[in-house]
């Protein structure tokens, strides 16, 4: 149990370091991949709605520390995304190898668009533009591409945190 508690923050930190140091150089059409959102999605896929919501909240709030958008905004979106993915995906994980990849793509695109919509409501100007769809697709494709690795990593990190085989 103690070991598991240490593994989750470790994976969270790893994703954060990758996001803040490597990916900001890797712009495609001016869009940055968002692996913190990926973490929320994958947590939902691997661990179900509870783990999805918790890890989504944690990854969002950690990312918020390094943004200028209102604090807590990413946490709100990511925990909802993690929960939704967990609720939908929970039962059908072992169906086929490509299902988690497609889920990651769809959930990432939805997460980016949802973020822009909520941010607009909170008072961030001019986020819903044509560029938003470019961003959503780039984030979705990148996340889908690295989803298999992320799934393995997250499964390892929560392997004995939940203690329930039903979640794995």
């Amino acid at each position: 149990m103690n070991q598991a508690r240490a593994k989750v923050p470790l994976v969270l930190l790893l994703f954060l370091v990758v996001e803040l140091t490597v990916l900001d150089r890797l712009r495609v059409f001016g869009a940055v991949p968002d692996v913190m959102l990926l973490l929320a999605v994958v947590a939902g896929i691997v661990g179900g709605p509870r783990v999805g919501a918790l890890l989504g909240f944690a990854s969002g709030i950690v990312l918020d520390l390094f943004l200028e958008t209102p604090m807590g905004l990413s946490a709100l979106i990511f925990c909802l995304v993690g929960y939704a993915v967990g609720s939908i995906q929970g039962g059908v994980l072992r169906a086929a190898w490509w299902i988690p990849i497609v889920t990651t793509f769809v959930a990432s695109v939805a997460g980016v668009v949802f973020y822009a919509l909520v941010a607009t409501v909170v008072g961030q100007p001019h986020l819903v533009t044509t560029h938003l769809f470019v961003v959503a697709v780039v984030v979705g494709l990148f996340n889908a591409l690295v989803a298999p690795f992320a799934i393995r990593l997250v499964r390892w990190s929560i392997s004995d945190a939940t203690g329930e085989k039903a979640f794995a």
Partner: protein
Amino acid sequence: MAVYRRSTRHRFLLVLLVLTSITVITVDVRGGGGGAMESIRRGARDAFAPVQSTADDVINPVSDFFGGLFRYGHLKAENSRLRRQLNDARGKVNASANSERERQELLALEKLSFADNLPAVAARVVATSPSNFQLTVEIDRGLPTGIQKGMPVVTGAGLVGRVIAVSQERATILLLTDPSFNVGIRLSGSGDVGVARGNGTRQPLPVDLVDVGTKVTGDEVVVTSGLQGSVFPPGVPVGKVRSAKVQPGSLQHEVSIDPLVDLTRLDFVKVLIWTPKDGGTP
């Protein structure tokens, strides 16, 4: 029954997390960016600064290697182009030395404060924004060097943006292409003023409030107006006019400008130690 209980518990957790997020958002937005949230952010950024520097030391050689490998032809062409430009620039410097002296004398005569005599802090850009929803960069200088929120940031070519957050080790700069960025400008030819606003990365900046009667020429340089209450000192070059036209029946000139600075490839910048209150031009 067990399944039902579990999903109720999950929903309770979700509601709890959502309410927590909304509370945090509200505190941050209502607090106007100050207070507890800001100090937490500052702490996190300072704590992360050494990690970032270490990661940069590891990643930079690798990415430079691959960058050089894949873009060899491009780099070679760029090198010869830059050499040509350097020669041109040397010639221009010689030619403008005299007019610069005259300008300085005039400025001294008029007792105006201009950007080039302001104290400044040089800094290196260490990271771009990790978000797709804000156009910012981080620099490796912070509070100890005198940088404060709101200070203008420039390069040799012109305006870059302004400081929107600052901690001990780092400062965050909002680029002038960010949609929430506004700057009062003056057309160098006619002297007419307007307001330029950011419109997203690699997009030209639309300029509002330019009078229909104003004559605007292509490639005309636009500088900060520095009118009273402006958040920028006067005379900092902002951009070049890209297009200008008057729609029939419109009450303003439709002008758009391109930034002078290549904001997608920033390396070194200067933060002007200037706040609106000590730069109060008449």
